[in-house]
């Protein structure tokens, strides 16, 4: 198979699909290659959050806010039901020890322009009546939303295909090809050579292995996260709820949470997400254990225990399934959305850890802008590949 496109996108998860969608919309001829089915890696083993509340106040949360705005437009232009709902989300403040840190977080996010509220005392239980009675506060972000991540990918790919994109599932990229002066000229795949003078590597945790074929070092590591799926049942909360301590497990540090050592060891923090089908999801865990995607039963037990601490009323609801996914972690919790300085024509869009679904719209748009040589919607300096070299 030899086929010529303007751009080859490697990776049919949410990021590669968003890049393909935005480029196709601009009339660029794109070939998307994915080694399995689309939405079969990390994008099939995550939850569907579009959250600004848990981003670092400032650049990080602003970028997410921008992505949320793009998503609102997207839901109208995709001819596919992606189960999008915008109900806002809350962080639960567990006790007095967390209160000051939580109020500071709230103030900084509000200052950064996010639609935030702080609820205390009685207001907490008027908002979410089934929360454990000893929690002391809620931090709310009204713009937060959720969707079905797999449907989102199918919708992006489907719409891109109708705009002319060529989608090649079950086609693994094995090597990035360069011409005699070192510029990108195509991709070698398990189904033959494909030509293009621009390549976007959007393969999440599998990005470093492919980048190594052109001697590029990418600082992404797989960080495993588990999720429990509950049966259809009356909802313990009407929207996304996370414990405030989730920020501690996300950004590092174990101060301020009174939990058994095992909880910190596996980075367990309660995350609750209702789905459009009446089920709900419970997360979360964080571990560096290579590429192992198997569920660890002990971790699932700890997650269930942590969920009961905040929602004691779910005790008799059944867990029907669990899964684990590999989040593409970077050392500073920001993705890499960048040209590769040493390989002209090569771009990387990967490393979103647990924020890939939410950041896919802005990542797709900015990558498209970079390739077309247009001014980017956000400043991309903090997302450069070479920032870790300094």
């Amino acid at each position: 198979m030899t086929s010529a496109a303007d751009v080859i996108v490697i990776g049919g998860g949410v990021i590669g699909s968003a890049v393909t969608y935005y480029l196709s919309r601009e009339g660029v001829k794109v070939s998307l290659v994915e080694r399995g089915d689309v939405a079969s890696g990390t994008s099939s083993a995550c939850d569907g959050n579009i959250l600004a509340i848990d981003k670092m106040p400032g650049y990080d949360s602003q970028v997410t806010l921008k992505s949320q705005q793009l998503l609102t437009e997207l839901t109208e232009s995709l001819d596919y039901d992606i189960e999008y709902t915008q109900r806002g989300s809350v962080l639960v403040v567990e006790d007095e020890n967390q209160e000051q840190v939580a109020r500071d977080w709230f103030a900084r996010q509000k200052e950064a322009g996010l639609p935030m509220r702080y609820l205390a005392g009685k207001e907490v239980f008027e908002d979410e009546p089934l929360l454990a009675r000893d929690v002391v506060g809620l931090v709310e972000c009204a713009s937060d939303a959720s969707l079905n991540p797999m449907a989102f990918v199918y919708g992006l790919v489907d719409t891109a295909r109708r705009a002319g994109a060529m989608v090649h599932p079950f086609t693994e990229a094995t090597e990035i090809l360069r011409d005699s002066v070192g510029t990108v000229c195509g991709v070698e795949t398990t189904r033959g050579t494909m030509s293009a003078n621009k390549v976007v590597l959007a393969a999440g945790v599998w990005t470093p292995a492919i980048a190594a074929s052109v001697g590029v070092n990418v600082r992404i590591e797989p960080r495993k996260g588990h999720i429990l799926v509950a049966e259809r049942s009356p909802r313990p909360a009407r929207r996304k709820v996370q414990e405030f301590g989730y920020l501690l497990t996300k950004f590092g540090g174990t101060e301020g949470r009174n939990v058994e050592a095992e909880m910190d060891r596996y980075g367990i923090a309660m995350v609750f997400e209702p789905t459009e089908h009446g089920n709900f999801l419970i997360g979360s865990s964080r571990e560096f254990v290579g590429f192992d995607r198997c569920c660890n039963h002990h971790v699932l037990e700890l997650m269930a225990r942590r969920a009961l601490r905040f929602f004691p009323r779910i005790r008799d609801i059944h867990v029907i399934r669990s899964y684990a996914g590999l989040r593409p972690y970077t050392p500073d919790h920001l993705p890499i959305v960048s040209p590769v300085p040493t390989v002209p024509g090569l771009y990387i869009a990967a490393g979103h850890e647990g924020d890939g679904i939410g950041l896919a719209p802005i990542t797709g748009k900015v990558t498209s802008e970079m390739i077309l040589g247009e001014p980017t919607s956000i400043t991309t300096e903090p997302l450069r590949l070479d920032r870790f070299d300094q």
Partner: protein
Amino acid sequence: MDDDTIVCRCEEVTVGEIKQAIREGAVDVTGVKRRTRAGMGLCQGRTCEKIVMRILAQELGKPVSVFELATVRTPVQPVTFGLLAEGSHD
């Protein structure tokens, strides 16, 4: 089976919806499951997966034997949060 026949009773997925998922690119039981929710309900596909395999075989013109069941996900039987948290379930 006509297109209105329900294949996955837990999630109420019809033959027609499964055929549509195959037209959209599903080539295996997992691909159908992700696109339609067939097998994502309380019974986790115990009832419908074999029927999904037959529809895949018919639509893609392949023998049923080439298709595999979706990956079995823990827990094997539904378990309550209470029991799971106590660690009394394996």
